């Protein structure tokens, strides 16, 4: 019973909590992750625009130069030097040098620090790409000068010959644009071309399979294969991926860490802006919130379980106790019913016995009368006859007294209050108990105040109280004998009855529970543990008190205080 109740209670209290926590946690986490990713994308978009505009800007200067001046002007080295100086002045460190190349790839004019006049670029990859296009932005490479850089070039045609105006853009100036992007501890950005070659210095070690991962981006796919189909499947397991109009974001597991990545196209998809950050870092706040929630959740669950265990055990114990009490009550009712029928039986017997006893006494009396006649006067045993007959009369009266007491006690209980002389009640009960006390060698000593005022109480209830207390006193003294003292006195507006025995006394532990129902020190089956608690209840109801003094080994005294009847008090 306890286990079922406990299980149901735990289930009912924990299930909604777990469901709620789980659902809320799941929704909160999902939307928070989305928000974080969105935020990162927005941030990155700004940088993407910055970088794109940086590149566009540089290209447009060269375009302006090529459009504004003639081939002859630009092949004049002094003029070119002058233009480079102007550009370098406006954008310090961005433009490294300027040069004009003919269609064969020979640099026919040059302005800059390096001695690159007449340099042959015909085999350089950038030149082969650049000569086919009106504008060109190269990937980053080291080239002839052995430092990373990239080239912006514009193709022009004057007459029948084609020529290129090209400028070298310093890598560091460009790199700093990307290096600025730092979020959290691990969030950083880098630029790669479609083959996965770095176009900037990666600040942190990038994902090892970045080149493979790049294949998920549609612009990379298009620029390497030259056709638009479904984005390729990356061979690296991607935990989650989402495509936006201008970005791909997702999460990848590498080196036992989850890394979120965002790809964005640069330079019309030739380059890719890559942002990556450890998941733990990006979602550090939600992780902290989850730890906190769990730290509250688990002790909470534990608390609920403990409380449920405690409460259900308590409740079951209480139910068991009340079951027991009800059982005891039933027994009490049965007991009372038994007593009532015994009472009726006793009353019947008393009446039936009194008649034959009355006849015997009457006959003995008649014999006494006859002894007075003349003829018996001389008999030697006349005195013995008289004594014997008198004794029959005395014993007859004794029978009458016994049956009378039996009848008065067996009377049906009635809780109607009457004015009662407590001394009379004590006398009645002592009469009934006298035989039992004589049996146990107990002397009874009474000290009753003859001027005791009346009290208002139910006679049967009061009888029950004294019967119980006196019986307990006799029990306490056992068969070894002792002295039972019953005193009645007046104390203020109270009638006080002291019932003192010289029994074994009450121990301290028992003393604190002595008026508790079902508390008994008697062997199983000998006492219900109800006697004193009923007495206590009766006296309490009358507005009186029932108290006890006891010392172990010396004896016990009960004090019954009953308020005197208002009219007689």
């Amino acid at each position, binding site marked *: 019973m306890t286990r079922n109740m406990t299980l149901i209670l735990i289930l009912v209290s924990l299930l909604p909590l777990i469901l709620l926590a789980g659902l809320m946690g799941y929704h909160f986490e999902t939307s928070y992750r989305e928000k974080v990713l969105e935020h990162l994308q927005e941030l990155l978009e700004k940088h993407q625009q910055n970088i794109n505009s940086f590149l566009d800007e540089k290209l447009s200067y060269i375009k302006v130069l090529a459009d504004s001046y003639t081939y002859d002007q630009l092949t004049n080295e002094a003029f070119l030097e002058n233009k480079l100086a102007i550009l370098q002045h406006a954008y310090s460190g961005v433009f490294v040098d300027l040069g004009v190349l003919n269609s064969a790839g020979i640099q026919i004019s040059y302005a800059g620090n390096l001695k690159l006049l007449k340099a042959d670029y015909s085999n350089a990859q950038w030149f082969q790409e650049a000569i086919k296009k009106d504008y060109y932005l190269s990937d980053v490479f080291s080239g002839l000068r052995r430092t990373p850089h990239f080239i912006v070039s514009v193709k022009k045609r004057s007459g029948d010959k084609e020529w290129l105006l090209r400028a070298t853009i310093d890598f560091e100036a460009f790199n700093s644009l990307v290096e600025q992007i730092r979020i959290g501890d691990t969030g950083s950005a880098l630029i790669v071309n479609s083959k996965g070659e770095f176009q900037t210095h990666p600040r942190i070690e990038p994902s090892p399979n970045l080149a493979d991962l790049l294949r998920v981006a549609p612009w990379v796919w298009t620029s390497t294969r030259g056709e638009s189909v479904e984005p390729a499947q990356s061979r690296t397991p991607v935990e989650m991926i989402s495509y936006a109009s201008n970005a791909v974001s997702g999460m990848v597991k590498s080196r036992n860490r989850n890394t979120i990545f965002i790809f964005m196209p640069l330079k019309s998809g030739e380059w890719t802006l890559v942002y990556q950050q450890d998941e733990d870092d990006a979602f550090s706040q939600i992780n902290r919130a989850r730890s906190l929630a769990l730290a509250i959740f688990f002790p909470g669950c534990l608390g609920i379980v403990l409380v449920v265990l405690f409460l259900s055990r308590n409740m079951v114990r209480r139910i068991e106790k009340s079951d027991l009490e009800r059982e005891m009550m039933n027994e009490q009712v049965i007991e009372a019913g038994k007593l009532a029928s015994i009472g009726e039986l006793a009353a019947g017997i008393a009446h039936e016995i009194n*008649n034959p006893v009355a006849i015997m006494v009457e006959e003995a*009396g008649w014999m006494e009368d006859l002894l007075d006649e003349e003829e018996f006067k001389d008999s030697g045993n006349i005195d013995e006859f008289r004594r014997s007959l008198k004794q029959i009369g005395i014993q007859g009266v004794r029978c*009458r007294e016994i049956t009378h007491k039996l009848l008065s006690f067996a009377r049906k209980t009635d809780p109607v209050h009457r004015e009662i002389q407590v001394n009379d009640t004590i006398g009645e009960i002592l009469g009934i108990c006298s035989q039992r006390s004589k049996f146990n060698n107990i002397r009874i000593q009474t000290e009753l105040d003859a001027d005791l005022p009346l009290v208002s109480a139910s006679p049967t209830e009061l009888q029950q109280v004294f019967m119980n207390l006196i019986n307990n006193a006799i029990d306490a003294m056992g068969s070894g004998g002792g002295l039972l003292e019953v005193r009645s006195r007046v104390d203020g507006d109270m009638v006080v009855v002291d019932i003192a025995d010289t029994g074994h006394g009450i121990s301290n532990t028992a003393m604190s529970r002595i008026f508790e129902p079902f508390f008994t020190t008697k062997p199983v089956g000998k006492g219900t543990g109800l006697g004193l608690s009923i007495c206590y209840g009766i006296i309490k109801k009358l507005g009186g008190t029932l108290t006890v003094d006891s010392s172990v080994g010396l004896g016990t005294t009960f004090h019954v205080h009953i308020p005197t009847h208002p009219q007689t008090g």
Partner: protein
Amino acid sequence: MGTDILIVDDEVELAETLAERLRLRGFSVSAAFNGEQALQIMEETSVGVMLLDLKMPGIDGMEILRRVRKTHPDIEVIILSGHGSEQDETYSRSLGAFEYLRKPADIGDVVDAVKRAGELGQGAKGR
């Protein structure tokens, strides 16, 4: 001399012995062994004091007491009952019984009660 006493008791032995003992003490006594007989004797002879048992077959003691107090208010009734309950005592006294004695009763008490009842009866007659 003395008062005419009527003993009413279904215990024949008791009624007769008690009657004999009261006669010995100078009373004129008759006995009835049930309610009907008692009512009949009351009609035929003059009765001063009635000694009445309560529990009897047929018309019981309480009923006789009630009728006597109605039809012969000058007859004093002394209850002599084996059932010693206080309720009975209070009830019979409220019906007008002169005295209530419990069986077995000492002959001295009976004589005393009869004498007191007789004096009261005589006093009433004398008036």
